[in-house]
């Protein structure tokens, strides 16, 4: 596998090989699925929509609905205005969502479709809403598209209010429904009144009821998005993903925000809880203190198995930074951390983590691909890889255990139901990391070294 990867690293200026990112619209589609009774709409060729739905279905093992403007040759010459008009009418007639969230594609952006004026000129049924976001895939990755779609909802819907509610808005970033559930559980334990936006729990992890619901029960409601303008404060979890939409909300409605790292690992979860505690004046509950203590306990129990082991972590910026922080807390060495998304902030935060924990010889790379990661590993190997399914070729070629985390995971099940965030998420991560290393030791052990108790 991957025999063609040479060890010698040459600078590439034009060629992308084995990307560690995908395009903006799939992020926008995912964000829109986190809004209750929302139909995501792809304004472009129909292949885009089909790919995005397939990609999401492969990760979540769930139906992922979206409609498309189905551009033809004509639309690409004369503009997609009439396609959008027809589409909006058809969608409300047939699928009856509360809201349509349109995102553009590289095609509709390049021909210069003006979505603002298109939407203004469309007759939208009473009580229904159409919003849009610009998501040209040549400008950013799926992470940027996710944030842009959030900003789109905010621009159209969030209402400025002098009177603030006691609610806190939580922006969870591009994470699994299992993470969103856990973030909400923690917030509930802190007795916080919150609006989570977006919220794909209950949508992309909906139970099997024996009938198909086009709009499952989960998702942030349109009313809640309107209410974002009146919240006390926004917690933007994951700086790279969630700062831009938080800034849009601040500019529009004057709501302040705190950008925090994704609560992966001990310190980042502490920070999340302390911030909630400060905002609503509650104490961290005994049960959460207990969870934290358990996490510290299991790290100690198992630490000789992973301390000083080297690891390569790759995927989306905020998740990679979160995982990096946690492996450092565990005493591991995150030798390479890499994201395909262009983000100098990612590299800066990564370097800061290396410095904080006093590890040397580690690299934080953004706007890079998995071919580069493979070459780095070929030159100087690691004990473990943590990241998305696309790293499995490298793991196989170099015979390195792989812990799957992030987006997309295409070759395993249940992952999207389970959290990485919070103390429980960290405990799960620790179990996966430790098991991967111990399974490997068992596999490699000669009979005389094979141990029952480890």
């Amino acid at each position, binding site marked *: *596998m*991957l025999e*063609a990867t*040479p060890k010698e690293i*040459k600078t590439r200026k*034009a*060629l*992308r*090989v*084995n*990307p560690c*990112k*995908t*395009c903006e619209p799939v992020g926008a589609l995912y964000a829109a699925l986190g809004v209750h009774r929302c139909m995501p*709409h792809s304004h*472009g*060729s*129909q*292949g*885009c*929509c*089909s*790919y*995005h739905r*397939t990609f999401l*279905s492969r990760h979540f093992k769930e*139906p*992922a*609905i*979206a*409609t*498309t*403007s*189905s*551009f*033809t*040759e004509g639309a*690409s010459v004369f503009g997609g205005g009439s*396609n*959008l008009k*027809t*589409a909006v009418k*058809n969608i409300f*007639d*047939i699928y009856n969502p509360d809201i349509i969230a349109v995102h553009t*594609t*590289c*095609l509709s952006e*390049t021909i210069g479709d003006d979505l603002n004026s298109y939407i203004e000129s469309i007759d939208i049924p009473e009580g229904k809403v159409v919003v849009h976001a610009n998501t040209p*895939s*040549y*400008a950013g990755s799926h992470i940027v598209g996710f944030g842009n779609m959030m900003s789109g909802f905010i621009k159209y819907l969030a209402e400025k209010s002098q009177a603030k509610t006691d609610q806190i808005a939580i922006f969870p970033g591009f994470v699994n429904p299992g993470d969103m559930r856990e973030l909400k559980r923690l917030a509930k334990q802190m007795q916080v009144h919150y609006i989570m936006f977006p919220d794909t729990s209950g949508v992309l992890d909906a139970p*099997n*009821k*024996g*009938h*198909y*619901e*086009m709009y499952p029960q989960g998702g942030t409601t349109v009313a809640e998005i309107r209410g974002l303008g009146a919240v006390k404060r926004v917690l933007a979890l994951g700086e790279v993903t969630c700062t831009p939409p938080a800034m849009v909300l601040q500019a529009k409605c004057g709501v302040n925000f705190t950008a925090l790292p994704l609560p992966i690992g001990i310190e980042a979860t502490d920070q999340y809880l302390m911030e909630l505690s400060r905002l609503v004046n509650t104490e961290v509950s005994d049960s959460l203190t207990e969870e934290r203590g358990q996490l510290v306990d299991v790290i100690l129990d198992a630490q000789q198995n992973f301390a000083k082991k080297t690891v390569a972590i790759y995927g989306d910026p905020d998740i990679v930074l979160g995982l990096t922080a946690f492996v450092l807390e565990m005493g591991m060495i995150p030798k390479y951390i890499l994201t395909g998304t262009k983000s100098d902030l990612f590299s800066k935060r990564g370097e800061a983590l290396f410095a904080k924990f006093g590890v040397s010889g580690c690299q934080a790379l953004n706007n890079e691909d998995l071919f580069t990661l493979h070459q780095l590993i070929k030159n100087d190997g690691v004990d473990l890889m943590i990241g998305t399914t696309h790293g499995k*070729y490298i793991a196989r070629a170099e015979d390195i255990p792989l812990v799957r985390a992030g987006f997309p995971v295409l070759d395993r099940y249940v992952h999207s139901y389970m959290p990485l965030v919070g103390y429980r998420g960290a405990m799960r991560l620790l179990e996966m990391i430790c098991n991967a290393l111990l399974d490997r030791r068992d596999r490699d052990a000669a009979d005389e070294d094979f141990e029952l108790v480890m």
Partner: protein
Amino acid sequence: MGTAVLEERKQSIITRDFACSGEGFGCERASVAGSVSQRACVYCGARVVLNPITDAFHIVHGPIGCASYTWDIRGSLSSGSDLYRNSFSTDLREKDIIFGGAEKLARAIDEIVQEKDARLIFVYATCIVGVIGDDIEAVCRDAEEKYHIRVIPVKAPGFSGTKSQGYKLACEAMMQLIRPHYKEQEKPQGVNILGDFNLAGEMWIIKNYFHKIGVPVVSTFTGDASYDSLIRAPQAALNIVQCAGSSVYLAKCMEEEFGIPYFKVSFFGVEDTTNSLLRVAHAIGRPEVICRAEQFTAVEKMKAEHFLAQYRPHLAGRRAAIYVGGGFKAISLIRQFAEMGIRTVVVGTQTGSKDDYEVIRHLTEDDTVILDDTNPAELERFMREMRADILVGGVKERPLAYKLGIAFCDHNHERKHALGGYEGVVNFTQEINLSLNSPVWKYLRGA
């Protein structure tokens, strides 16, 4: 229940209530805007056909998405190179859109050739390249001259037609590749297998049959194909076409230019596999081949029928829904279900032709629902109304079926085992049985 059907969609649906004549059936047309179509685009069509060529560099010239989504997705297996399982692209950025991306493409080709031993490169132009007008043909031509390798452009902007248009582009690209290797005086020998992509090793199963009956296989399109194997294709005596939707155009081109006759075959189900092998043997015409084919298929058919007889009691009376890409596969599946004692009550395709739908009408009963380019809402409605027990489809249909409490079998890129040939009959039947009779259903129904 009873989701409405769009007025524009009614012509693409045949039911007992609103049957339109086969003549007027709406297929081979663009999807209705605003529909949750299960269909993909021109680029997708071109890429899925060419992707299994194992030692080719497939470069996507465009922004990153189209390269990401098609990275090693087909499940086509290789006995040689695994180059095709990498993702190469130019990852176009904003400034490339403004100033043009041709230079970046030329450079990307340089970066490949200078690093690796490249002989064959396909360059796919996606949507915006079609709009900004990069002259990728010129870039490819220059690269061919500079490096003395084949660099073949595939101009496949997604908006320029349907997925079928992409199939055609792929066929044209393959003709560009093999045309220079045609020599008139060459003595024809053996067959080319077209339209099988070696998903789960199906091409190997079929090749093995031909080996057994004494028919040489010259080249395969495109399952487990390589540069060297493809350029031998013009020497073949006969082309057989399995996935007609994608590859019959290639067969027609080869017939016209190289004089190679062709016919359609199917290796799905006992009946189709047997008939196809016999037909090829008769076309080759050598008595020993015909004799071996008759013996081989008789034995295999008996074994398969014995096997099916054991399963039939578990399956008989069940009702199937089919939603697949091409018409020919749908037709095979209807026959295959009939062999299992299962009646097909809903059948649809993404890209079936009028002829395909005519055959489907004849093979199915009067109340069978027939759909072209359908969407989840219609599928749900008709599967419910027709009380389907199992759906055969692709990745987007799987979770839908399960949510509806209906069993499922992937007959697309994510098939779990080979579904072609006699081996495929065993695998398919077992999978259908496992899914239909899984113990978990009783917990769902009890809820």
